[in-house]
């Protein structure tokens, strides 16, 4: 069965390998440029695009490798040929899932390793590995996503029995899961640490938002992940005087950081410290691996005795 599964996977694997190779060349060039450059910040936009590609890639694997895996057999009627060989349908599905799932994980692993290498100096300089875009596009996470996406595609194809609807539904489910994961699930991998940070001029420059109600967003903890930020407090732990705050904020963008720093403020925040990066990568990968196994088990149940017309 492994031979047949590989033989059928050959054409899509080749197409995927060509895409991967082309992108890999670009990544190598980019990685060398970043290493020669004095200002890694200049690569910010390019790396955004690269991260987006890496984040989308597992979804594409699910759509083009996973979804047609079983649905194409139904469309061509060849499931009736292969199911009348001396191999059980569950075993047939298991081998197919294994071949395409491992193929997807290898492809995503290569891609992730290249991006992790290429963006290395930039990531080190920025120290923000927890950002959704970066977290999901480095190290182990893309490998787990790829395994999940390919098996998801295959099982959706098994249910729908049509490749195009299966492709559409696969990408839809994948996107929903990929949005829900970093926003709803990932922050709860551990209990956030609470602490206070002085609001220095540099800290203010890094903020993304200064609200009229003296709320702030975008506070950074070096290498860590801030999940919630409290109000601005004075040295006496009193809420900041709104009038003083507004004077600083409205006084001119260039002066705001120094003006706020002069108020000697600090801010309470809960965050995941930098050393949680690898545990979080592992937990997230394990969750996707668990989902993948659940989907595979569901596929095994569905294929065993479908009380439906065989064609």
């Amino acid at each position, binding site marked *: *069965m492994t*031979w*047949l599964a590989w*033989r*059928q996977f050959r*054409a899509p694997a080749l197409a995927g390998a060509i895409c991967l190779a082309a992108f890999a060349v670009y990544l190598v060039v980019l990685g060398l440029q970043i290493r020669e450059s004095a200002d890694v910040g200049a690569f910010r936009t390019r790396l955004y695009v690269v991260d987006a590609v890496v984040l989308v890639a597992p979804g594409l694997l699910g759509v083009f490798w996973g979804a047609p895996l079983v649905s194409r057999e139904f469309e*061509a*009627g*060849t499931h*009736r*040929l*292969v*199911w*009348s*060989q*001396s*191999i*059980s349908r569950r075993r047939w599905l298991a081998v197919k899932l294994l071949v395409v799932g491992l193929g997807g994980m290898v492809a995503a692993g290569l891609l992730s390793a290249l991006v992790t290498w290429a963006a290395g100096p930039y990531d080190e300089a920025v120290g923000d590995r927890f950002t959704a875009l970066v977290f999901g596009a480095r190290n182990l996470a893309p490998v787990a996503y790829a395994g999940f996406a390919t098996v998801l595609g295959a099982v959706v194809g098994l249910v729908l029995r049509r490749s195009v609807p299966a492709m559409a539904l696969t990408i839809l489910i994948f996107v929903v899961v990929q949005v829900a994961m970093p926003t709803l699930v990932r922050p709860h991998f551990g209990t956030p640490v609470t602490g206070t940070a002085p609001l220095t001029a540099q800290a203010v420059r890094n903020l993304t938002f200064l609200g009229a109600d003296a709320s702030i967003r975008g506070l950074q903890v070096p290498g860590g992940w801030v999940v919630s930020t409290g109000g601005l407090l004075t040295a006496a732990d009193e809420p900041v005087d709104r009038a003083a705050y507004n004077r600083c904020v409205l006084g001119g963008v260039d002066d705001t950081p120094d003006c706020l720093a002069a108020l000697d403020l600090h801010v309470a925040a809960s965050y995941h410290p930098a050393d949680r990066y690898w545990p979080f990568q592992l937990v997230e990968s394990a969750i996707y691996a668990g989902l993948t196994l659940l989907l595979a088990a569901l596929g095994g149940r569905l294929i065993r*005795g*479908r*009380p*439906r*017309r*065989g*064609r």
Partner: protein
Amino acid sequence: MPVRDKVRTMSRMPILKTERLTMRYGHRAALTDCDLAIPRGRVVGLVGPNGAGKSTLLQLACGLVTPTTGTIEVLGARPGAHLDRVGFVAQDTPVYAGLTVAEHLRMGARLNPRWDGALAGRRIAEVGLDPGQRAGRLSGGQRAQLALTLATAKRPDLLIFDEPVAALDPLARAGFLRTLIASVTGIGATAILSSHLLDDVERVCDWLVVLGGGRVRVAGDVAGLLDAHRRVAGPPPPGTATVHGGIVRGGIVRGTAPAGEKVSLGDLVLAYLTRAAEEGR
């Protein structure tokens, strides 16, 4: 049980047995209360109009679908328990378009423990298939031959064909049926083939099952059936029962060695199917 007795029991055991087999798709019944016992070593014709339940019965026998109620046994076990001993050639004989003929044989060798590579190679040569040819470029007749080769070289005890010749032209049809029977008898298997055309099965089958409206209308040995049916004018003679009153030339009756004019298999099947259709109205 000594092995010899076991073998003897097995050879007496029907190869396919159903009891009150019923299959419903939603509210539509495809098969209703089918009782069948098909003996070994026969070439069985499964005849009936489109929608009579032929494909459903064959798919049940292969374990592709599971019955709503009732039981079905193939080789003395639930369908699908002996995947290596049952061959199935599906309607319109699907093959992998992207794989060559040789690759199909390789697939067969890898997926079937009892694969007979020599037989497969010989058959491919006999029917003139080029091993390097992609299956997607084969003609309908060649594709059917490839599917037949795959099913035969598996060396099954039971070979099932769902409308094997429906897609073929009359010439290819006759040739294919001939090789089909040669293949089946060559490996000593029992064969069941379905068709909505009696002509196809009449030539090659020695056992007949007539399905109409999801029910078994008549089943049995072809010679025995022909012996038991006669065409008579007027009321049925004592000891016989009317199958169908007849439209033009008198009715067809069934009994033990009845008197009257002999009937052809075609007339016999038509009588049962006409009655089934009239009952269904």
